[in-house]
C-alpha cells in the first residue's frame, strides 16, 4: 500500500493536518473513487479511513452485473447500473494506466442457470422481463450452458447468458485506487473519523478520534454502513453478507455463474489467479461479524449443486461484510443539505459497479464542472438524491 499518510503531514508538525479542498470519509471503493476523480481535477483531497478497503469492498465479489441482477420494481437501479457499466472500460483504462495495477477486469458475461422446472420457469420469467425493457439476453439449453462451462453439473436444464455483464477483483481495485490517488496528489489520514466539524451550519472538516480536525472546504461522507455515525438519521443500514473464497486451478470457470438452487440464488465469480468467490447471504443482523456454520454449509451445498467440482477446491477464506442498504436500494449521492456536506454512500450490493458514475457525479458537484456529463448530475443519478428521504432535516 502506498504511503499516503506522509503526504498529509509533509508540512512539518505530524499532529497538524493542513487544510484541503475536499475530505472524503471512508476509503472503500466509493470514497476512493470519488477522491481519485476529484484529485485528478486539480483539487486537494484527503481520505480519512483507518483501514482503506477493509469494509464492504473487501467482502465484495466485484460483479458488474446490472443485467443479470435485475429485479421487478428496480428499474431506476438498473438504468443507473447500465450507465455506470458503460463508463467502466474508460474508468479501468485510466486507473490501470495511472496505477500500473491490473484490475483483473473480465467481460465474458454472466451465465444464469436453472435446474428443475420451477427454476426454468423463473428464468423464462426473468428473460421476458429483460426483453420487455430492452436488455440483451440469450436463452441457452443445458448442453449449450455446459459447452460454455464444462464444470457445470449435468443436471443443468438451461440458462440465460448476459453477455454484457463484467467483473473485477475489488481488492486489486482498492490497491489501484490508492496508488492512483497518491499519484494524483491525494492524501490519506489513517485514523477513524469521529464526527464532522462545523461552523454554524457549514461543515468545515472532519473530527478524528484523537480530537484533531482535518479541515476541508467540503466533506464527502462515503463511510458505507457506518455513515449514520457521522450524519445521524441517514437512512443506511448494514445488510450482513457472508461470502467464501475458494482457490483452485486457473480456468476452472471462465464466466460468472449464477444459479437458482431450489429457489435460492447463488453465484461463483472466477478470477485470473484461480480464486473463486462464492456468495452470498443477505441478513438483517446489524453489525454481526460472525461467520456461521449454517451459512458456510448452505453456500457450499448450493455451489456444489451448480458446480460439483467446487468441493475439491481449497476453502481459502470466509468473510463477513456489511452492505450499506437504503430503503429503496438506491445509493445516496449528492448534497446532504448543510453547506459543504455531500454523500456518496448507501450503494448496497452495487458499490463496485456504481463507482464510476458515483465518482464522476460527486467530482462534478465538487468542482462545478460536469466533466463527462452534460449536466452536473446525470439524469439516471437524480433518483439518488439524498434529499428524497429526509429533505432539509439532516444536520452536521
Amino acid at each position, binding site marked *: 500500500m502506498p504511503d499516503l499518510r506522509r503526504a498529509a503531514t509533509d508540512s512539518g508538525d505530524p499532529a497538524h493536518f493542513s487544510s484541503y479542498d475536499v475530505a472524503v470519509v471512508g476509503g472503500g471503493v466509493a470514497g476512493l473513487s470519488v477522491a481519485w476523480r476529484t484529485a485528478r481535477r486539480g483539487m486537494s483531497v484527503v481520505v480519512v479511513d483507518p483501514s482503506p478497503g477493509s469494509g464492504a469492498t473487501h467482502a465484495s465479489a466485484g460483479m458488474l452485473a446490472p443485467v443479470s441482477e435485475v*429485479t*421487478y*420494481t*428496480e428499474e431506476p437501479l438498473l438504468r443507473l447500473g447500465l450507465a455506470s457499466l458503460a463508463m467502466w472500460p474508460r474508468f479501468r483504462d485510466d486507473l490501470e494506466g495511472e496505477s500500473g495495477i491490473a484490475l483483473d477486469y473480465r467481460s465474458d458475461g454472466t451465465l444464469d442457470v436453472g435446474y428443475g422446472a420451477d427454476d426454468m420457469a423463473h428464468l423464462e420469467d426473468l428473460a421476458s*422481463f429483460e426483453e420487455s425493457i430492452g436488455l440483451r439476453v440469450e436463452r441457452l439449453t443445458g448442453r449449450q450452458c455446459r459447452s460454455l462451462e464444462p464444470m457445470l453439473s449435468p443436471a443443468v436444464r438451461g440458462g440465460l447468458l448476459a453477455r454484457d455483464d463484467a467483473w473485477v477483483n475489488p481488492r486489486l481495485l482498492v490497491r489501484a485506487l490508492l496508488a492512483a490517488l497518491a499519484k494524483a496528489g491525494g492524501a490519506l489520514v489513517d485514523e477513524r473519523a469521529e464526527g464532522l466539524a462545523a461552523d454554524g451550519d457549514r461543515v468545515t472538516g472532519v473530527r478524528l478520534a484523537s480530537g484533531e480536525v482535518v479541515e476541508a472546504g467540503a466533506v464527502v461522507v462515503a463511510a458505507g454502513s457506518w455513515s*449514520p455515525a457521522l450524519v445521524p438519521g441517514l*437512512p*443506511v*443500514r*448494514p445488510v450482513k453478507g457472508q461470502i467464501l473464497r475458494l482457490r483452485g486451478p486457473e480456468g476452472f470457470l471462465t464466466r460468472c455463474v449464477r444459479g437458482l438452487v*431450489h*429457489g435460492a440464488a447463488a453465484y461463483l465469480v472466477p478470477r485470473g489467479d484461480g480464486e473463486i468467490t462464492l456468495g452470498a*447471504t443477505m*441478513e*438483517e*443482523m*446489524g453489525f*454481526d461479524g460472525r461467520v456461521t456454520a449454517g451459512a458456510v454449509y448452505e453456500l457450499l451445498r448450493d455451489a456444489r449443486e451448480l458446480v460439483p467440482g467446487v468441493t475439491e477446491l481449497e476453502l481459502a477464506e470466509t468473510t463477513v461484510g456489511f452492505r450499506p*442498504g437504503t*430503503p*429503496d*436500494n438506491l445509493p445516496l449521492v449528492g448534497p446532504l443539505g448543510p453547506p459543504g456536506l455531500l454523500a456518496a454512500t448507501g450503494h448496497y450490493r452495487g458499490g463496485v459497479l456504481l463507482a464510476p458514475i458515483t465518482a464522476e457525479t460527486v467530482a462534478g458537484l465538487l468542482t462545478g464542472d460536469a466533466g463527462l456529463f452534460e449536466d452536473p448530475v446525470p439524469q439516471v443519478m437524480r433518483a439518488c438524491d439524498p434529499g428524497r428521504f429526509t429533505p432539509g432535516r439532516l444536520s452536521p
Partner: protein
Amino acid sequence: MTMVDMPDDVLSLGGEKFTSRLIMGTGGAPSLDVLDQALEESGTEITTVAMRRLDPVARGSVLDVLRRRGIKVLPNTAGCFTAGEAVLTARLAREALETNWVKLEVIADERTLLPDPIETFDAAERLVADGFVVLPYIGDDPALARRLEQAGCAAVMPLGAPIGSGLGIRNPHNIELIVEAAEVPVILDAGIGTASDAALAMELGCDAVLLASAVTRAQRPDLMAAAMRAAVTAGRTARLAGRIPMKRYAEASSPARQG
C-alpha cells in the same frame, strides 16, 4: 362496502381484536420501500417476520417499518427442523420483541418445506405450557388441527399448498373440514398465488389469510397487496352473505311462480 351493515365483524385472535383479516409476511421483498408500500396497500394489522436472520435491535430494518406503521409483529420460527430449535427461537423472540405470540413453523424437509406434524405438535405443547400464544403452521389435516386446538393453540394455520408455490388451495374440502370443527380461528397459510385464492380461502370459512410471496414477488407488489386486501374482504363478505347452493341445471332468476 359502505352500504352494507357489518358492524361486528372483527377477528378475535389471542385475546385481541383486528379489523383486517389479511396477515402479511415479509420474505422476498426486494427493498424496504417496496415492502412498506405493499404493507400500506394490504391494510394488514399483523405481519410475521422470520427470527433466524434478523437482529431485533438492528436499526433501520424491517422491524422499524412495522413499528412505524403500528403493525403487530408476529415472530415466526421459519427454518427450524426440530421442536427444540423452534422453542428456543420462540423464547429468543419473546425476549427480544416483548411479545408472547409466535407463529410456530417446524419444517420437515427443505425441498417441500412442508410442516413436520410431530415436531410441531411437540413444540406447540411446550410453548403453550410456557405461556405463549401459539399459531401453528400445519398441513391441511383436520385431525391434527383438532389436536392442536385441544392442546391450547390460539389458532390453526393450515396450508393451501407448499410455501412459495403459489398453487392456491389444493384441497378445499380439507380446509372446510378444519373450519367446520374449529373453535379457534383458522388462518389459511401458504400457497396463495393470486387474489382468487385468497377469496376462496375466506369463502371456505377461514377467519384470515396469511401470505407473503404472492405479494412480495409480484411484478407490482403494491398492486397485488391491494388486490389481496380486496379479495379477502370480498371472500369474507360472501361467506357472511351465504352463497346459493350449486345446482345441476338452470334455474330462471325471475320465475313465473315464487315458492
